[in-house]
Structures are given as C-alpha cells and as structure tokens.
C-alpha cells in the first residue's frame, strides 16, 4: 500500500514556473470577474506573471532531476521550454490588446486562457509520465479550443473552434490509445521506466518484438502529428489558423507546436531512444519520421505558394517548419533534440512576430488578410514592413537572422545522424519557401497599393480604406503590440548573431539522473 506522503519543498520548487502561471491565471480571471471596468490591469498581471514564470524557470535551469515521484522532469530541458512558452504568452498577451479590442472580447478572459494553456504546455515539456503528458495536452488543447472561438459573433471563428475541437479530440483518442498500448507492453506509463526497460537487452528484445508496441508507437505518432500539424495530419491547421483570431493563431502555431514537440522529443528521443540499439527497429522508426518530415516540408512549402491569404500562407509554412523539426526528432538522439529546441525558440519568435504584423494590418485595412493588402506597405507603414521583412527573411532561413542558425543546426544534426538525403530535400524545400516569403517583401517594398506581386493576379484585394487612410488614425492599445513586435525582431537578430545564448543552455539537456 502506498503511503500518503507530504509534498516536499523540492517538488514545489520544481513546479514553481507552473504554479506561478496557474496562480496568475486564477488571479487574472478573478480580477476580471469582479472588476467590470475595462482596464489594463489583467494584461499587466498576465505579463508580470509570465515574467515571474521565466524568473522561476531561470532559477531552476541548472536542476537535473525528477519531482513528484518521477512524475515530472525538473531539468534544463523543461525549464528551457517553460521560458519559451512564457515568452510566447507575453507576446500573445501584448499583441492581444490591439487585436481583440474591437471584438468585444474580455481581455482578462483571454489572458487567463493563455496562462492556463501555458500551464498545459509546461506539463507537456516536463511530463515524465504519459499521464502528465496527456493531461498537459488536454489542458493546452481545451484552452485553445476556447481561444479559437473567442470571436463569438464571427461564424469563421466558431467554425474554426468547432473544427479544431473535433479534430483535436479525435487525435486525442489516437494519442490515448497509443498510451494504452504502450502501457500494456511496458507495464508502466513512466518514461524513465520505459527507458530503463529498453536499455536492458532481454526486455528490449521482448518489447521490440511485440506488435502492440509498434501499434502503440504508431498511434502516439499520429496523435503528435495531429498536434504539430504534420502532413498528412495537417488538414485542420490552415482552416483553424485562418478562422481563429490572429493573435490566437500566432500563439497556437508557435507555443502550441513547441509544446507538442517538447513532449514528442521526450517520448521519442529520450524514452524510446534506446530502440536505436536495435538497428532494424531504428530504421523503421527513423524511416517513418523522415517520411512525415519530408511530406510536411514539401507539401507545406508547395501549397503555401498557392495561397492568397496571408494567414493561410503562414499556416502552410508552419506545416513546413514542423517538417524541418521532425527531421530533428528523426535523428533519435540528443543532438537532434537540442536542434529542435533551438529551432523552436527562433520559430516561436518569428512566427508570432509575423502573425503580430498580420494582426496590425488586419485592423488597419478592415480585412487585410490578402497578400495584395500588403502592397506598398513600406511606404505607408515603414516600421511594420521592416519588422515583417525580418520575420520573412528569418522564416526563409537567411543569415544573420535566428531562423538561419536554427536551420543550420537542425540540418547539421540530421546529417550527423546519417539523414543526408532528407536534409537535402529539406534544403530544396526551403528554397521553394524563399519564393513565397520573398513575394511578401516584393509586395511591401516594390509595389504600390493595389498592385500584385509577380505581375499575375494572386487574389482579390479587400482593402477598403484609401492609401494612408489607416495611418492617420491613432489607434489605442498599440504600445504593447509594438513592444511585442520589436521584442520579437530584436530577439531574432540577437539569436542570429549570438546563438550561444541558446546553445549554451541546451547543452545540458537529457542527462539521466
């Protein structure tokens, strides 16, 4: 009989980032429930709370152990990801005030949901037990379902929420079945236990030769592939990112994806990594992962070319970026997982920055989701155009921006793991991506309002305001949004020039206690 034990101080310190996020979320919601006058206090509280979570994670960053009886990882890995999620939460909250104001969304509710979603993400990044992983996934997803439907008057937003909800729960079913089958083979849901069993040759041989182990792995893979929107489980992503409020799309497609990847890496590159000892099994696993990666990179980038709607374009490009990172997961070693973490950091900044700019333009020109609405932006809004250019160049992987270093590191890890052909495909796919990222820059800088990018018609413009019409309006709530955009852009530059900031930290990943 297990004895009911006290929670130790070590445990509490380990979950401090999580506690801070959850606590702030409650406080924000409470404030919102009792204070009816609109104010900036909930937003400020949310930002301060996220900063607190960052501070707590920084304090814990040298830890390397387990908390709550092996339930939770308390190490550089989990704390590094906690910092990424908190930064994403700060950016989302800062951008929200401008994006959500006119839609009669109570900003405090949004901030609370963002913080709860961040809690789920931290659970994903630190779950050493598949039960925690599952709960984290659901905590995050439920907050996302609500956030996607936040514009209650908008049918598009409702539909996005419904589609996300149905497909999200559907994939959760597969994920759960995968957990169940792995539990059946291992007799435990604990990742450390799985790891240890696979290290033991006799057990490993038994497990690898059990068909339900592979069935369970495949199901888990499907579940993760849904969450990271990898081809061919991506169908929900463009519709949801398009229909959801722009800031929410930015948050979902960055932090949400980062969280799913953090758990993905824990399950595949840590717990199941000893499978590598078995050559045939390694090839099997690697081949499937590479197939997903190549499919996502090629499909995402090629489809993105055909998009006329910026949000859809970013959605398809996010599918492609998931493909690059899958290549890192496919290495099945610590090197690859470091590369994924580094890439996720820069990806979060650039994708949320790009969505942030879209949120600005969207407000300005009442619609503003079509590529052609960006024509001549450099003249109307030079600063916005400049930030968007940085985001696009970084997404395209051009030095000296952060996106380049991330890609370099990822491909280096892939080539070291012997996946050179897939890395070459990735490089070619990213060349394709240059085309459509560049198209936006062409529109912003080289074209006048109303013109198209490469001479051909690429979608109708829905701009209503005359040139410069929006610029004259003084729109409130922009300070925070500007701060977020500048933060993202500067972050990308700094991480590109001095990647050691990240790489120094990720070196300590995955030291078994």
């Amino acid at each position: 009989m297990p004895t009911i034990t006290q929670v130790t101080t070590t445990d509490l310190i380990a979950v401090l980032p999580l506690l801070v996020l959850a606590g702030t979320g409650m406080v924000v919601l409470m404030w919102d429930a009792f204070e009816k006058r609109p104010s900036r206090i909930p937003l400020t509280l949310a930002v301060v709370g996220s900063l607190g979570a960052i501070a707590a994670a920084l304090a814990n960053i040298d830890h390397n152990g387990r908390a709550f009886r092996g339930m939770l990882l308390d190490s550089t890995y989990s704390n590094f990801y906690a910092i990424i999620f908190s930064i994403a939460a700060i950016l989302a909250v800062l951008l929200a005030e401008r994006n959500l104001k006119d839609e009669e969304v109570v900003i405090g509710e949004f901030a609370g949901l963002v913080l709860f979603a961040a809690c789920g993400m931290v659970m994903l990044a630190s779950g050493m037990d598949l039960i925690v992983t599952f709960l984290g996934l659901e905590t995050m997803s439920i907050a996302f379902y609500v956030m996607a439907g936040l514009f209650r008057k908008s049918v598009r937003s409702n539909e996005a929420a419904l589609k996300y909800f149905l497909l999200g729960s559907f994939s959760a079913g597969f994920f759960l079945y995968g957990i169940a089958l792995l539990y059946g083979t291992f007799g435990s849901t604990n990742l450390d236990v799985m790891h240890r069993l696979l290290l033991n040759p006799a057990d490993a041989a038994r497990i690898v030769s059990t068909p339900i182990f592979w069935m369970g792995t495949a199901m888990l893979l499907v579940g993760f592939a849904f969450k990271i929107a990898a081809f061919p489980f991506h169908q929900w992503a463009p519709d949801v990112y398009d229909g959801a409020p722009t800031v929410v799309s930015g948050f979902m497609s960055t932090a949400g994806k980062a969280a799913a990847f953090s758990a993905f890496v824990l399950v595949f590159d840590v717990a199941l990594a000893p499978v590598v000892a078995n050559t045939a099994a390694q090839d099997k696993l690697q081949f499937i992962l590479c197939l997903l990666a190549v499919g996502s990179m090629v499909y995402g980038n090629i489809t993105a070319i055909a998009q006329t709607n910026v949000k859809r374009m970013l959605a398809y490009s996010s599918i492609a970026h998931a493909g690059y990172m899958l290549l890192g997961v496919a290495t099945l070693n610590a090197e690859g997982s470091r590369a994924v973490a580094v890439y996720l950091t820069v990806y979060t900044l650039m994708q949320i920055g790009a969505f942030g700019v879209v949120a600005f333009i969207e407000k300005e020109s009442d619609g503003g989701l079509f590529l052609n609405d960006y024509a001549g932006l450099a003249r109307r809004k030079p600063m916005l155009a400049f930030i968007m250019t940085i985001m696009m160049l970084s997404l395209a992987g051009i030095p000296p921006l952060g996106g380049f270093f991330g890609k370099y590191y990822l491909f280096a890890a892939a080539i070291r793991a012997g996946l050179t052909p897939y890395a070459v495909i990735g490089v070619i796919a990213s060349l394709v991506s240059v085309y459509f990222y560049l198209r936006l820059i062409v529109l912003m800088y080289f074209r006048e309002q109303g013109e198209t990018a490469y001479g051909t018609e690429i979608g109708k413009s829905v701009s209503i305001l005359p040139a410069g019409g929006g610029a004259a309006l003084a729109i409130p709530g922009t300070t925070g949004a500007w701060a977020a955009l500048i933060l993202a852009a500067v972050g990308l530059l700094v991480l590109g020039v001095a990647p050691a900031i990240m790489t120094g930290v990720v070196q300590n990943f995955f030291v078994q206690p």
Partner: protein
Amino acid sequence: MEIGEIIFWILSIGAIASALLCVTRQSAVVSALMLVLTFVCLSGLYLTLQAQFLAVVQVAVYAGAIMVLVLFVIMLLNLSAEEFKISRNWKTVAGLLATLGIMAQILAAIFMSSDKLPHTIHANAGVLGTTESIGEMLYSNYSFPFEMASIILISAAVGAIILAKKRLV
C-alpha cells in the same frame, strides 16, 4: 463455458451492437441513447474485470453527466433528424476500406502479441479496483496530475461560459 465468460460475451456483443446502432442511426436522440447503452455495457465489462470504482464512475460520469448534457443540447437546439445516407463515391469507399484495414491491423497486432501478455487476471486485481486503493494512489503517487486536473476543469468551465453566454461583455 463458464458463467463469467458468458457474461463477458453478452456485454461485449451488447456494447458493439449498440455502438454500431449509435453510429448508424439517423436520429441524434436515438444515437445518444444507444451510446448510453454502450456505456452501461462497458461498465458491466469493468465489473467483470473487478474494477468496481471505475464501473460506478463510468455510469455516473458518462451515462449520468456527459450524455445528459449531450441530450440536453440536442433538445435545446431542436435538431431535426439528420439525413444519413452514405454517399457512394470513391472517397467513402476508400475511407471505409482504410478503416477496416486499420481495424484488421490493430486486431492482428493484439492477437500476435497475445503470447507476450498475461493470460489470467492478476491475483491482486480485486484489491486494485477498489475505491480505497485508487484513492490512496491518487493522493500519493499521482497527486500532481490530480491537482493539475483542476486546471483543466477550471479552464473548461470558464471557456464554456465565455463561449456560450448570450450577452457580450
């Protein structure tokens, strides 16, 4: 065939049959009721596995709470009977074949793994399924997920209010 086995087959066939009916009936209300029947059969299966606590919770949560909520929404929205005809295009056929293929694979995996899995129910099973032992487990080893479940519930509650409340702001 001993009595336990007979009960198992009755419950299993009942669960599968009512699940099939749930998926194929046109009326949403009938589907919902069939699903309740499936849940009850499953609860019985849990009992044959000596998982008493979960058997009770199954009826209380699924049949009692969730399905009542679903039925309530169906009535509230006054949905007309959905026209359910399987369109006979290649997509449907391909989807059906794919689904059957997956089922065959899962079943094959299960049967091929059977020699590596235990054949008899564990001696401790009766103890493990009791409310007491599950409660102790929840408050010891699994205290962290147990606490975190509260965050799911609170965000779901808040979310439901945000989405479904009538007056804006």
